[in-house]
């Protein structure tokens, strides 16, 4: 079964544990500037929103790459950057409509979420369950259940 990151912004407090966990997993340092998941703070609305790659099925980044440096991990569904192949041309960063693949000047390569090989560090680190890792086919299950709970409620 494939799984997807499921993000519920209402639960996010803006602690950035996810960014630290992501950067530590991929770079060996606590370094939010190298995180592949970013928390956005809509200060004047009181909203904080974690955002990262949705692993598109028809991935713009993958198709745009001229050297085939981005490949599908069939097991997790992640589109993974192979740094040895990447030439840092940045075409993928232009192709991605969501901005979730970005160039890293330090390495001369691009980086994006790779789902940590099926065990996303951001999910483990999130203290409020704002980021969870759920059945990719049923990311709507929680909301369906919430609506279902309202059915026949008058009978209770």
């Amino acid at each position, binding site marked *: 079964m494939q799984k997807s990151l499921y993000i519920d912004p209402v639960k996010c407090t803006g*602690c950035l544990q996810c960014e630290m966990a992501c950067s530590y997993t991929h770079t060996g340092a606590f370094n939010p500037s190298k995180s592949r998941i970013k928390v956005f703070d809509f*200060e004047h609305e009181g909203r904080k929103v974690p955002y990262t790659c949705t692993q598109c099925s028809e991935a713009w980044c993958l198709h745009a790459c001229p050297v085939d440096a981005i490949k599908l991990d069939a097991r997790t569904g992640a589109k993974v950057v192979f740094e040895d192949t990447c030439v840092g041309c940045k075409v993928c960063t232009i192709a991605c409509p969501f901005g979730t693949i970005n160039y890293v000047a330090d390495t001369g390569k691009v980086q994006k979420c790779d789902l940590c090989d099926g065990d996303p560090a951001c999910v483990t680190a999130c203290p409020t369950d704002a980021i969870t890792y759920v059945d990719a086919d049923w990311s709507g299950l929680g909301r369906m259940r919430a609506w279902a709970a309202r059915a026949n409620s008058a009978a209770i």
Partner: protein
Amino acid sequence: MAWTRNILRVNLTEGTCTPEPLNMQWANDYLGSRGLASKYLTEEVDPKVDPLSPDNKLIMSTGPLTGTMASTGGRYTVVTKGPLTGAIACSNSGGYFGAEMKFAGWDMIIFEGRSPEPVYLYLENDKAELRDASHLWGKSTWVTEETIKTAHQDPQIRISSIGQAGENGVLYACVVNDLHRAAGRSGVGTVMGSKNLKAVAIRGTKGVSGIRDFKEFLKVTSEKKQILAENAVTGQGLPTYGTQVLMNVINEMGALPTRNHRDVQFEDANKISAEAMAEPRASDGKPQLVTNAACFGCTIACGRIAKIDETHFSVVNKPEYWGASGGLEYEAAWALGAANGVNDLEALQYANLLCNEVGMDPISFGATVGAAMELYDIGVLSKEQIGLDAPFGSAEALVKLAEMTANGEGFGKELGEGSKRLCSKYGRPELSMTVKGQEFPAYDSRGIQGMGLAYATSNRGACHLRGYTVASEVLGIPVKTDPLTIDGKPALVKAFQDATAAFDSSGLCIFTSFAWTLADIQPQIQAACEGDWSLERLELVGERIWNMEKQFNLAAGLTKADDNLPPRLTTEPAKVGPAKGLVNGLDKMLPEYYELRGWDGEGVPNGATLERLGL
């Protein structure tokens, strides 16, 4: 190394930025943040210096756990000699700025001298530049942050700045970071203003890579986060209600200072409480509280994000205040509310927003208004002198006086000097509810006896964050003690003070101590830092820091007479509540405390104590 081992020395007079290695001997003896910055200050600054002269220094410092995955690991401290107190000033803040300093590769920044023109420090990893801030002078902390981010085309910069209060010499000006987090007390922002330093803007992309044993660190920090999550205070009370969870509790205890400490219970406490913030308003059907929020790395998330009532008289036609922003914490709600007898929650939030915007401490400001209202009440101050009617309970007066103080207008200039100078000027010094010139926070020491000693002996003047015996006396953490007696309180105060100094020096937040003891911090430091960091060593570090701060104050000219409480608290019994009939028993606690500390009868550390602590 959890320390970056780099400090930046900024000479504002010369306009130079010079890196130098961290003194690792001092890091080993004083850990980081509060302790380490205080060590540098005491070594480099003459304790008798005029706090607002170029010879004073201002130090911003992280701790070894700042910028790590340890819960609450985002704190930094601003240390200087304080203009409000003449004592060592040391104010701690969360938000994201502290971690960013660490990510840029710096443990500490030391500011010296005074810039001839307004400047801000721009730090991009190793790159350090002083830049012109003349266009920012006179601007609020909010505008300053936005302007700097726009100018650099970089929304990811983190900024600490002063607002108009720090520029105008309000003696309790803050350093504000991330819009509404503040190194709040003792006028550290006033010192920053005196140096013509408007802001520090940092972008750090190096991260923290020097953890001694990452695997062990992740394991132990994860275990400790679980303790926070399962604790009733840090797992439920604080995220749900914030520190405001205390308003009704402390009022019930008869320990909520009201109307300049005339009373110990506020009849309208429920109108300015956490519960009131969550109550839908009649005007728009929405509660003032929007959500809770965390500082960097914090898994507690006690912060309040609130929206003011757009129809409230204070903000009519002022849309700049209508958005979500930092909401009332317990201390601010008390100081702006109960301390003045004001029960208008929206007026309190407006004054709170102003404090963040212009950068001034809502505790000292609110308490100073309380003193002014008492002077007005007894006829010492007239409507003409103040410029308006200022009876206890007047939300209109609170709002107007906040604006006048923020802008340095009229009587606001006098309020900006704090309650000690105000009450002395008008011949009633005994009405100033201060220790060492700093206003009390939100606990009346007639109803919580240990806090009287904690206030009197706090090295930065009256403060709840130097020895929070409320935890024991009210909440039973780590053990319940009777708030109405003085028995055992000197030892309790000493233990809290020493442990807090170590907590504050780690880079973590003292609020973790609702669930953790120093024994929970110890393995996190041990996993992060080289060397043997035993619990005993951390306790010694805490006690060493306390005594070092004390020595600085003694050298600055403070004496036993400054370890005191206003006569109201020691001679006027509480009128109602559980503490009815009680005054604070400081006179009985203080000698025992001095003895426990290894200090002589005048509060001077004796030779054996100094030797034991390596001072």
